[in-house]
């Protein structure tokens, strides 16, 4: 659990990809996501994985992305089995399951390389309502906190003799009640405290608060946009041929 949770959390790393403008990282992620939806042969999926892998190495997130992929592989396995049961050909089932992993990898690649602050700048750049931006970014920021809470709650309940891994599927689901109730309660309490703290710091007084940082594209960002668009168009042409 701890191992997987660390694969979902942003960590500041020095890499050429991390240094890019967050809008460029979003563009690359959307391109990979779109290609993952379009890929329907083994060669296309392999090419897509090679691109994601190269980007992960370049961004120094390979290990953490690997954890996310390992986690999504469980669901990919279910997709594979369901397709086999639905009597789809084996290769097609493998491609469909791999597509799912590629979609997860493309999305989590963006979140692993983009800080919650950068995410906020991007959303503001899209002129989304301030409250929605704040709610979304806070939710992203709280993922690691909730993960740590969940781990602590699990430790506390296991110390009271709760054995999560014993019993049939229904018994196991029921055993999650002692974990979910404190988790939800602490999240609600925390959100209430956060709301009070934000109000005490004048949140909502003005509709247009000033910003210390503004997004601006540099030459390397423009170069990456051009290169990624070129590769994306070539891939789309190849995939549809």
């Amino acid at each position, binding site marked *: 659990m*701890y*191992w997987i949770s*660390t694969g979902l959390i942003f960590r500041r790393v020095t890499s050429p990809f991390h240094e890019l403008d967050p809008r460029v990282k979003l563009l690359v992620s959307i391109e990979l996501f779109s290609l993952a939806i379009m890929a329907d042969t083994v060669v296309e999926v392999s090419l897509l994985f090679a691109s994601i892998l190269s980007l992960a190495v370049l961004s120094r997130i390979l290990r953490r992305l690997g954890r996310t992929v390992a986690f999504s592989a469980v669901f990919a396995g279910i997709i594979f089995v369901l397709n086999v049961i639905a009597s789809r050909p084996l290769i097609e089932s493998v491609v469909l399951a791999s597509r799912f992993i590629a979609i997860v990898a493309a999305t989590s690649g963006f979140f692993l390389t983009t800080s919650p602050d950068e995410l906020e700048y991007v959303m503001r750049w899209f002129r989304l309502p301030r409250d929605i931006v704040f709610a979304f970014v806070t939710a992203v920021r709280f993922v690691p906190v909730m993960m740590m*809470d969940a781990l*602590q*709650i699990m*430790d*506390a*309940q*296991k*110390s*009271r*003799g*709760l*054995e999560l891994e014993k019993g049939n599927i229904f018994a196991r689901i029921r055993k999650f*009640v*002692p974990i979910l*109730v*404190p988790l939800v*309660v*602490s999240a609600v*309490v925390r959100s209430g405290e956060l709301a009070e703290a934000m109000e005490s710091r004048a949140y909502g007084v003005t509709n247009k608060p000033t910003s210390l940082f503004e997004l601006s594209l540099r030459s390397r960002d423009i170069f990456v946009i051009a290169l990624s668009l070129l590769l994306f168009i070539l891939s789309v042409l190849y995939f549809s041929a």
Partner: protein
Amino acid sequence: MIKFESVSFTHLGGTTVLSDVSLEIAPGELLAIVGANGAGKTTLAKHTNGLLKPTRGIVTVFDLDTRKASVAELSRHVGIVFQNADHQLFSETVEDEIVFGLRNLGFDDDVVKKRLEWALSFFELNRYRNVAPLLLSGGEKKRLCIACVLAWDPEAIILDEPTVGQDYAQKEKLEQMIRMLLTRGRSVIVVSHDIEFVWSLQPRVIVMAGGRILADGLADQIFTNTDLLEKANVRRPHLVELSELIDPKPEKPFHTVHDALHWIVHQLRR
């Protein structure tokens, strides 16, 4: 008996949080673990009931090797009360909350009833027995968490930051409860930043820093060693500071506020 033999623990990410820790905790012993944040105190505590398994070395808890025994098996011997009460409470009533651990550990109905009544009366929770735990005050929640663990009468109890959010009266009650447990032959391990509380208990003290045990000794020896405390980033108790202000090398520092008051009154009368 809880025994750590050259225990090290490294997270999957590669961070080492315990390094070569060796330690023995005897039945009926009162031990305090102190150290700065990230010193490895809670990690050490989590090894005693198998929540964490050592990456190197052996932890034995009442002759059970923690690598081979389950958390539930070990928890029957070592009860841990975690710092955050809100992380532990989930039942509809206080009664259900106390019974949860007893049922998990497979106690008979008669024993469950008996232990429930004992816990409710000892922790003065009788009038709340049908109240939702989440509606209790901070101090009551903390008391309930301790009651939930003591209900199955483990041989050793670990209290992780027991004084957080507790007022003076609650701290006194906590101290009384610890003394009662010791008279019943239970080992009590207190993990705390509250140096004044630890000093009032006068336990055996372990000082941790960087995942290692820097010192192991009686409170008098540990809290008068300024160099050691500076190294571990631990503050001296106020009563030790007061004793040293009066006499730079006190024969015996004041253990309680009452001792200090007694001395001051005595001096004034002279």
